[in-house]
């Protein structure tokens, strides 16, 4: 009797994701991060608005290293999602959809987002 076993190769760690693919998955990750950050941002806003004491507490919070790292992470997520979204809009308009442009723009977004986030971070502290 013929065996019906048919394995499937789909080990994601063994499949090389091109740079545009990495950008795409990062777009999803940053989107999820942004969504998850909404309650945190709301809580922070309500703390700041609760009065002088609350404002001081929020300010103290921002002096802590883990909070600053989290802030950088969310800022990166925002910048990546924004820049990658603009790139997707250009591609939807049939601009930069051919090689090597779509790869170059993916690199620009992947490298640009953390740099922009780093540049904006001091303004938030």
């Amino acid at each position, binding site marked *: 009797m013929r065996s019906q076993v048919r394995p499937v*190769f789909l080990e994601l760690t*063994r499949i090389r994701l091109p740079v*545009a693919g990495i950008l795409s998955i990062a777009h999803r990750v940053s989107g999820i991060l942004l969504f998850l950050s909404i309650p945190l941002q709301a809580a922070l806003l309500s703390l700041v608005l609760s009065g002088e004491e609350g404002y001081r507490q929020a300010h103290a919070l921002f002096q802590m290293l883990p909070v600053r790292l989290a802030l950088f992470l969310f800022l990166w997520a925002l910048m990546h999602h924004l820049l990658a979204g603009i790139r997707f809009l250009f591609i939807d308009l049939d601009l930069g959809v051919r090689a090597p442009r779509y790869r170059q723009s993916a690199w620009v977004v992947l490298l640009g987002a953390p740099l922009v986030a780093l540049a904006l971070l001091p303004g938030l502290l």
Partner: protein
Amino acid sequence: MEFRVWRFNPESDSEPRMETHQIEVSRGMMLRDVLLEIKRRDESFAFRHSCGEGVCGSDGVNVNGRNRLACITPVSELKAPVEVRPFPGRPVIRDLVVDMGQFYAQYQAVEPWLKRQEPEPEQEILQSPEERARLDGLWECILCGCCSTSCPSFWWNPDRFLGPQALLSAWRFLADSRDQAEEERLDALDGPYRLFRCHTVMNCVDACPKHLNPTQAIGHIRNLMLKKSV
């Protein structure tokens, strides 16, 4: 040079395994020659191939994580150890031979032939050079499957999402001045899955050995849909 190939024999194996071969490579050698050498050593080794020059599209495999045609992949371009696996996401029949049935079914679903409303003319239907030029970058597809099997949307929804290959073919007929089934074709592509599961990951463009651009074709279909709906 070290080569590791994916082996699976449905009659004797319950799990796939990687098999290592040391193969002496020579100048100008293609990956297909290496696979043939492995087959000379062990005739039970199975992979598809035919023309040997990137025209038939039979020997698509996953090489060091990338989908490529073995016959036009120079061994000198590859980093050792070279790992050769079957196309991702397709059920494996044996070794590197996968079941492409779903892929062909999606190709068939876009009805890749000219459709006329008017009666068939007595002589051929003429095209201007400009009309003919619109088909360049579309007709060259050899149906090797490198694009669709590198597409995450096709991995997760191979039955509902048409995949880059079928969508490129859909545009090839939508763009053809001789075809008269535009509305019917666009209606068939509507819905959340068939075309719109494309998230512009663009793995397909990276994978295509003929340097075609399914993402651009999908964009053209979307634009046409938009034009027809406003």
